[in-house]
């Protein structure tokens, strides 16, 4: 294990000094907090990428670059190609959850009457509370999509009204599931390509800068390279024992959603792929003496950093990957600018959670069935966010399909991955333990 050495730690600490701006105060607190946490942990390229990501915003402010805020279900490569500073909003809720700093902002949203935990997802809701406290970054531009969920569309819409900045909304189409239809029909592709071009035109107008096509091509080549690494990594996880520990796949998602299109994402995905390949070659398991392989087709419980370790150590069980870590975007033809637009259109449709949840239940059920079959899964665990209406209301159908077609049991329980006060770590561990000991083993 390679720890963050004292010299590098000091270097990063120094880089974090100085005024970041009032609205980046919380961002700075997160940076410093994470730096301290990472000091005690393995200093992997994933950690390095996260640290650099935090430094991007104050740097952008100094350089006069526009900051664009966007949600967790869209890749930032076009933003990087346009020389913007992308800020994936949910880094806040995910990053603050284990530090239990989400809770005060959730309380603020309760006080000001912006939803409650079972109604509006706390992946986005704390943003409104933080904004009311002057603690949320105020971006220059805002981008969001119509799916995978209403919570994104609504909270971003509210944020847009509150801060009154230029905003672009992309419609990700929903369509009926029909085995006779091609997955990407001509109309759908045309629709998405046109919207992607409209996004670029909008950005060009807002920042008064034309898209540099050469840079776009280079960015798309980088994102493609990273996608190839992720695909290989996902294949390697099919090995028994699984060559990587439970949290590993999430690193790929972080790379693609925050740094997609940059050398950082290539470095992280390559590192993860190489680690997995090396472990397969050397017969090393991510969880020693692996006994149980778990499918986790929803997000992690972000407030409990040690939950996966608990499952690994107590039950010799490995969580293969979570729903976000399942990044299924395939590499695309990047030979021309036009082909790059096509690739980005497909990426928007397939992105983590979007591909599985934007359409009818069959999208999700087929995903879970394939996941269970291909990864030789022993059981499924779904820690459902109370407010996640689009996913919560199909998990039972998925669980029944998995049981009836494959004889594999599923545990579904409600919780709030961003707020430990709803269902505690202890309760979650108890439920998982009972399931694993009484049903699975």
């Amino acid at each position, binding site marked *: 294990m390679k720890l963050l050495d004292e010299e590098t730690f000091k270097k990063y600490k120094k880089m974090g000094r100085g005024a970041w701006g009032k609205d980046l105060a919380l961002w700075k607190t997160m940076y410093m907090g994470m730096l301290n946490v990472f000091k005690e942990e393995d200093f992997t390229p994933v950690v390095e990428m996260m640290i650099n990501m935090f430094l991007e915003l104050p740097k952008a402010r100094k350089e006069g670059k526009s900051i664009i805020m966007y949600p967790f279900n869209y890749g930032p490569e076009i933003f990087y190609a346009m020389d913007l500073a992308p800020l994936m909003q949910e880094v806040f809720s995910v990053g603050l959850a284990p530090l239990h700093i989400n809770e005060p902002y959730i309380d603020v949203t309760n006080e*000001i*009457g*912006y*939803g*409650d935990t*079972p*109604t*509006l997802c706390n992946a986005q809701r704390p943003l409104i509370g933080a904004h009311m406290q002057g603690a949320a970054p105020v971006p220059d531009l805002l981008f*969001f999509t*119509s*799916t995978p*969920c*209403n*919570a994104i*569309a*609504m*909270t*971003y*819409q*509210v944020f847009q*009204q509150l801060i009154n900045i230029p*905003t672009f*909304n*992309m*419609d990700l*189409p*929903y*369509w*009926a599931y029909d085995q006779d239809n091609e997955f990407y029909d001509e*109309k759908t592709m045309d*629709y998405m390509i*046109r*919207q992607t071009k*409209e996004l670029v035109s909008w950005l060009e107008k807002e920042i008064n800068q034309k898209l540099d096509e050469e840079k776009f091509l280079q960015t798309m080549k980088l994102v493609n390279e990273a996608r190839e690494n992720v695909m290989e990594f996902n294949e390697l996880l099919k090995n028994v024992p699984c060559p990587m520990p439970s949290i590993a796949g999430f690193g790929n998602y972080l790379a693609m959603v925050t740094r997609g299109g940059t050398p950082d994402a290539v470095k992280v995905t390559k590192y993860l792929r190489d680690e997995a390949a090396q472990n397969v070659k050397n017969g090393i398991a991510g969880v020693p003496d692996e006994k149980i392989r778990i499918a986790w087709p929803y997000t992690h419980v972000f407030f409990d950093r040690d939950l996966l370790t608990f499952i690994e150590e107590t039950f010799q069980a490995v969580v293969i990957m979570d729903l976000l870590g399942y990044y299924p975007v395939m590499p695309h033809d990047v030979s021309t600018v036009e082909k790059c637009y096509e690739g980005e259109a497909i990426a928007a449709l397939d992105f983590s959670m979007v591909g599985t949840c934007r359409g*009818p*239940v069959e999208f999700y059920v087929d995903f879970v069935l394939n996941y269970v079959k291909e990864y030789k899964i022993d059981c499924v665990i779904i820690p*459902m966010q*109370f*407010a996640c*209406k*689009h996913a*919560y*209301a*199909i998990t*039972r*159908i998925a669980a029944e399909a998995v049981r009836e077609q494959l004889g594999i049991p599923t545990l579904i329980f*409600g919780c709030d991955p961003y707020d430990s006060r709803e269902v505690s770590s202890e309760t979650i561990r108890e439920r998982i333990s009972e399931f694993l000991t009484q049903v699975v083993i």
Partner: protein
Amino acid sequence: MTVMEKLSQALPLANPWIESWRSEGKKVLGYFCTYIPEEIIYAADILPVRVRARTCGAGDTPMGDAYMTPTACSYTRCCLELANQNQYDFLDGIVSCNSCDQIRRLYDNIRYKAPFPYHYIMGVPGCVSDTTHEWFGHELTKFKENLEKNFEVTISDDKLKKAIQVYNKSRTLLKEIYELRKRDNPPITGTDVLNIISAGISMPRDQFNDLLTQQLQELKEKDGISDYRARIMIVGSMLDEPEYMKVIEDLGGLVVTDSQCLGTRYFWDLIDENKNPINAIGERYLSKISCPRMTGKYTEREDFMVKLIKEFNVDGVILQRMKFCILWWAEIFLLRNRLKEEGIPFLELEREYILSGAGAMKTRVQTFMEILEAR
């Protein structure tokens, strides 16, 4: 029998109007949202009926709780419950859209747990642009073709134009009724208006238009209501339970206008009868006074609310939202600010689909009335 009594016959789920339609061997399709273009269904000589679930007992929904989950809105839980109890056996199928996460998942759960002979879901864009208009036209055409194929009918442009005229007539008549509500002494209560609209979505539209014409004539000649304490506007989502209106009106709040799914947002905007019918339908549904699901249109909705407040001389607004409704909680959060800016008193009510706990609601509405009277 009065016109209102005839209309009231259409209020139960399976009503004589639907039975009569079916006795002619014709089909009935249930739909779930104001974004479903009834005109296309009607042009296929199929009766579109908006799915309601008021007979869902005391709101107990074990099936809905299990599959939609307890944190889904009670409308969707009640619908799944009734579908599972075969209470919609007068329907030959259902048509839905991605209006909200809960509605689209209701469609999925019905298909799996309480299926009908026919299911269709269409994609409605979440924002409006030239690109989304074109896409929606494509979706409407796919829907039309699917109906033609499954029900072995031809939906010609002439049939579509005729259906558009029929539905536009309803819209025009309803608007005329709303015009009468602007009077100092409106001739009709909000409860009756809700019942009229609920009847309209549950019976053949030509017959509804005949009754509506008669009703309008009666109202024009009727003495108005003068013994009210305040003029109220209701803003919110799907509400077809007249008991909610009745609680408000029994306490002296006369509901004179609204911005609701079963209210202005359903009928306010006409379809252009001179354009290609599919294009015209698409334009109307994407540009109509929108639901909060349509992003980028908030200011338009807010302005529409304020416009109605002024035109109908509203004293106070009741913002109603169903428990666990993502769209309306976010929307109401923003609307509050505008109402404060405009100096319009408002009351926010969280409700379930089926009225329960009327006592608590009465207390809050009573207090609101006193506040309005004291102004």
